[in-house]
């Protein structure tokens, strides 16, 4: 994960040439802030605003996860614990201060979640970061299970199966903001999202961030230089807990309910999916991943009953063929653009994409027909896909599906090989010119 991640890996103190001007340094953030400001004007429907609220929360969550996986090489299977505990603490605090008694406005409540995440990050990190690698992954898995099972026992605090509810409008109001309308919550989340993203980016630029990268790449050498790798991992783990807690606090403000399932294995799994599909080798990767996965989640769950299966298959194929995620694929095009070769290679991408889509259609036909035959059989065997109606037990659709999958797959593999060759050739050509 080093070749495509120059935003992260470029050594400190070597900004290309002279120090970057203020515009280059702050420009992207100003653009991002303006973008966040105008987004609800562009996508103003209720659905899109609440979707963007979820996306903002998930961006913080996925980025905090990437402080572990991408920056420090720590694969955690229990990151949702901090998200959930942050959310629960925020919700409890809000319930305690309800009725406008507390002097704190709603804007600062995510900080409660962040502090909770930090405290629990310190506690669990002290145990988990004693080991690295596979053992660390197993310990975080165990901690995740430990906390979720305990939450079901401690009903008073976690509210058992139903969880606890809050009312965000009951909190002390300032500037006449009641946070009843969703768009006000959007701006709250957007603000915290911007602050968190900048803070996490800033951390990657500090010497500590660099040492995290070094621990990821070569822990033995870092040890030899004189750093204690356990301490570095511990700090990274605690800070990741802090930001996950902020995300959890925002989630409890947004949904006005916290449930112990939100810190379970499924939530921990979905943050891995987001970070990895987006790309862990690049700072922007998890942001892309959070947006894409949240959107796909919404879209696919409407289209298909077995949408989670598609997610799993997408994830596995990313791990196998695009280990740097979407951001990695985009970054691979950068040298081509710099050499002015992108337009020569692009047709090959299209050539590979078409049979790929055909194969995907065949695969999803097989999945949907199997589903119709087994689970939805009670609703009859008739079904429609892309406006074509057919029976799930007829021979013709199965033949079509197999031909689409087989033919598309075969052509796709060949076209992908051609595209790879074209990419290599373009790189060489660019170098010669």
């Amino acid at each position: 994960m080093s070749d495509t991640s120059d935003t992260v890996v470029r050594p400190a103190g070597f900004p290309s040439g002279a120090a970057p001007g203020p515009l280059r340094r702050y420009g992207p953030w100003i653009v991002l802030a303006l973008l966040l400001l105008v987004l609800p004007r562009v996508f103003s429907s209720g659905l899109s605003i609440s979707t963007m609220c979820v996306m903002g929360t998930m961006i913080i969550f996925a980025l905090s996860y990437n402080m572990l996986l991408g920056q420090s090489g720590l694969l955690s299977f229990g990151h949702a614990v901090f998200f959930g505990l942050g959310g629960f603490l925020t919700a409890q605090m809000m319930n305690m201060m309800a009725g406008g008694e507390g002097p704190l406005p709603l804007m600062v409540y995510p900080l409660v979640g962040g502090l909770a995440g930090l405290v629990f990050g310190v506690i669990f990190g002290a145990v988990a970061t004693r080991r690295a690698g596979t053992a660390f992954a197993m310990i975080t898995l165990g901690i995740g299970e430990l906390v979720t099972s305990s939450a079901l026992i401690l009903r008073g605090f976690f509210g058992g199966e139903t969880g606890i509810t809050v009312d965000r409008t009951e909190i002390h109001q300032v500037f006449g903001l009641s946070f009843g309308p969703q768009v006000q919550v959007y701006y709250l989340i957007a603000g915290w999202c911007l602050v968190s993203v900048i803070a996490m980016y800033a951390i990657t630029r500090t010497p500590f961030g660099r040492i995290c990268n070094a621990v990821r790449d070569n822990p033995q050498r870092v040890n030899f230089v004189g750093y204690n790798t356990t301490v570095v991992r511990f700090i990274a783990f605690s800070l990741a807990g802090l930001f996950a807690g902020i995300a959890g606090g925002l989630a409890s403000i947004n949904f006005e309910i916290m449930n112990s399932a939100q810190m379970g294995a499924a939530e921990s799994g979905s943050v891995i999916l987001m970070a990895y599909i987006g790309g862990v080798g690049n700072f922007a990767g998890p942001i892309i991943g959070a947006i894409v996965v949240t959107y796909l989640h919404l879209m696919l769950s409407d289209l298909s009953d077995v949408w989670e299966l598609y997610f799993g298959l997408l994830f596995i194929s990313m791990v196998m063929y695009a280990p740097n995620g979407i951001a990695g694929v985009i970054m691979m095009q950068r040298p081509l653009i710099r050499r002015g070769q992108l337009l020569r290679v692009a047709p090959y991408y299209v050539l590979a994409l078409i049979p790929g889509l055909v194969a995907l259609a065949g695969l999803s036909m097989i999945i949907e027909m199997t589903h119709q035959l087994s689970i939805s059989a009670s609703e009859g065997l008739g079904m429609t896909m892309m406006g074509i109606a057919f029976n799930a037990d007829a021979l013709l659709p199965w033949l079509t599906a197999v031909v689409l999958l087989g033919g598309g797959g075969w052509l796709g593999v060949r076209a992908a090989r051609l595209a790879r060759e074209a990419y290599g050739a373009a790189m060489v050509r660019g170098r010669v010119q």
Partner: protein
Amino acid sequence: MAEILFFSAVNGITYGMLLFLMASGLTVIFSMMGVLNLAHASFYMLGAFFGFEISRHLGFWPGLVLAPLIVAVIGMGVERYGLRTVHKHGHVAELLFTFGLTFVIQKLVEMVWGKLPVDYLVPPSLDFPAFTIFATEYPAFKLFGLLASIAIFLALMLVIKRTRIGLIVQAALTHPEMVGMLGHNVDRIFMLVFGVGVGLAAVAGVIAGPALVTQSNMAGLLGPILFVVVVVGGLGSLGGAFVASLLIGLVQTFAVAFNISLADVFGPVAADSGLALYLDDIWSVTVAQVAPVLPYLLLVLILIFRPRGLMGNRES
């Protein structure tokens, strides 16, 4: 009391041996390839569901043989075409690959068999009480499960200690490069070991299926406990996995048998402050309710006092 102790001990050993059937395969795969197969419990689930499907058409006994064979072939395919491709991206990618696999297998099982438990019956030839003790009947099928796991355990030990292929596997555990140098096809050994390992998990699934519940969440329930077993025992240690399997099997069954809470021992909480509400939860929870948490608590304690695990000899 003697009754509770006896049945908890027998049930605990049966459960522990089932855990070990899976943990042994997991441990051998981990020691050889350095990859912890997160999907191991999913193969156990596949074994149970294949066994169920075959038992509907051919009966239980063909299922006991065929289901593990099918799962072993699937496992070898996964190793050959999945893990080996991912291997070049490093260990994290391998772990993530098996993690994705758990997800996909669970969704596939839900797609074909649904989310509700299926009716996987104990075979009629074993559907009788094996013995009656303290006026309680002990089902023959559970006894069969225990004996089968012990038999497989002994057979596995014999193969590893006494045969040529076992020698090569043992050598490949510690010195894979050297084994390759000596002209053995390490890739094929890896594939075989992966197949046998997940096949064993499938055997455990076929045995556990009728005894426990065959449902699409069974992998999710058992998987984390399985990983606790291998970490507590010490990653890569077969002996440790054996001890830890029995330990966790016994701890869980004994905890379930005792319905005592702190409140029963020390009396109810006296204070009436705001904290009492939260304290009361801890105070009145019974040992039986805590049972699901105990393995993870054990994991954390072991890591604090003995980070290598009970019998582990490597750090990571």
